[in-house]
């Protein structure tokens, strides 16, 4: 059983996001990159399946050079090998383009299962996993929260989330692409020392196939949404804020 996991580098939204002078992209120098959260869950699910089915896990790092750090972390967590797929900063968040760049490596790898997050923090268009499945002509289900595999490796059974807390159980033939919503358990922690160690010995295969030309997607304009903030901000330290809150709640008969 061969599993590939796609790990995209995206802006860390906890940090301040600075819009570039062109008004339609983020300032590359100011962005702190992290691995997309849903992709971290995809890696965790792959590692769970590896433990259950003696599978091999290939981590596929997408982005700039910092993607190599994500690959080292993936190997430290238990991934068996690593592929680096460089993507220029301006094309991140464009899933049509990502799918076109990724599909040669996904096709030639002969994977039974390809996992990636159902969404990415910076995506403008939806559906990397679905786009890949179409390019590879294999089944796809997204919003997946758990996977079980038939011992003979011919079928996967997934649980998929629906609105309102409902779950759907679906079965697909393999190979397949699954878009992961969350793993069965929180992504595992790995000490920095082990990541540093993995980085020293990391052997990364870089994808060299030239991507086909696709009509991609870019924002015409990017705006900070906090400019629309409407909350009345309560000034002062924690005690002063608590006092004001209690007053507001009492006025409304809540406390």
């Amino acid at each position, binding site marked *: 059983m061969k599993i590939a996991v796609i790990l995209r580098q995206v802006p860390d939204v906890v940090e301040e996001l600075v819009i570039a002078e062109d008004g339609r992209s983020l300032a590359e120098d100011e962005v702190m990159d992290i691995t997309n959260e849903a992709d971290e869950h995809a890696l965790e699910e792959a590692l769970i399946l590896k433990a259950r089915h003696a599978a091999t896990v290939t981590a596929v790092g997408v982005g700039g050079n910092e993607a190599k750090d994500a690959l080292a972390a993936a190997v430290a967590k238990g991934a068996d090998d690593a592929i680096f797929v460089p993507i220029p900063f301006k094309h991140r968040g464009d899933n049509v383009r990502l799918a076109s760049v990724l599909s040669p490596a996904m096709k030639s790898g002969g994977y039974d299962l390809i996992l990636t997050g159902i969404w990415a923090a*910076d995506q403008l268009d939806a559906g990397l996993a679905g786009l*890949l499945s179409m390019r590879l002509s294999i089944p796809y289900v997204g919003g997946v929260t758990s996977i079980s595999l038939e011992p003979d490796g011919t079928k996967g059974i997934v649980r998929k989330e629906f609105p309102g807390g409902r779950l759907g159980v679906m079965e697909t033939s393999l190979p397949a692409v699954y878009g992961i919503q969350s793993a069965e358990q929180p992504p595992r922690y790995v000490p920095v020392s082990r990541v540093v160690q993995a980085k020293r010995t990391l052997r990364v295969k870089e994808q060299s196939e030239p991507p086909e030309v696709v009509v991609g997607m870019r924002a015409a304009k990017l705006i900070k949404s906090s400019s629309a903030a409407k909350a009345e901000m*309560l000034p002062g330290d924690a005690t002063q804020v608590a006092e004001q809150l209690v007053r507001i709640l009492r006025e409304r008969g809540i*406390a």
Partner: protein
Amino acid sequence: MIQREVVVVAEHMAGELSDITLEMLAGAHELARSVGWHLTCLILADDPKPFEALPLAADKVVVIKDSSLGAPNPAAYARVLPHILKDLSARLVFLGNTSIGVDLAGPLSYALGAPAISGCVGIRAEGDRIVVTSRICGGKLVAQTEQGEGLAIVLVMPGSFHRELGMRDEVPPLEVRPVPTALDSLPVRFVELIEPKMEAVDVRKIPILVGIGRGVQSKDNLPSLEILAKELGGALCATRPVVDQGWLPRTRQVGRSGMTVKPRLYLALGVSGAPEHTEGMKESGLIVAVNKDPEAPIFDIAHYGATVDVLELVPILTEKIKEAKGSQ
């Protein structure tokens, strides 16, 4: 002038149209009316009966009927929709930015050679262009994309349009069609639908909720938050990352694929305000948000906000509430 076609792909469960369908119709209707386009509500179902005689804000309702279309099987939808959308000469397609719509985005985008713009919170026509505004990066940024000629697919964020405007006074004509292509040997089989198991605490029915996000940092901080919720006469609920960490059960998750709540008070502690969460709580009567990041998008929808340390505030607030109750 060629009549342009807007198609809303309906979502439904157990014979009922989902709120997102009405919200999409509201947005699509407003757009279609502003530019004189025709609007079709497209429903894929095994039985058209529940959808007959609904006063939907569309010029026409088309039901594609087949026994394989009872449950939202992404493979069945993805096989049928390209044929129908081509047949309807769709210029613009609305999908929900939900676990159902997102599953269709990639396959439809590829099959129809059309962009599938995600996270749409607003849409308007400017001359021949369609201008879509989307929330990205956890809601911190708004991206504007422009589409010229050709088909475009937009995925509408739940809560972006008023669902009441997705209905009107009259019932549009309804047409039932068979599937345009065989639905045998689908690569995905829908096995079963599992309804959520409710615990004793049903957050949808509790008037006071303390919503916790990643800003509460650790499971060890939960007891003091529980005490605060109890003092307020309410209960704890959480964002998806908190539930994914296993700190609270799935039934306490608020937002997309979780619960939609409308309490009298929603006290958001350490919640950033990602659209995935706010779509499930933004109709709350009073929203108070505490987050150290002054740019957190939760302040866009909160009535009151503060940027103090949540963990410092919680014990003080608990004491102040106790005092206030004692003085009554």
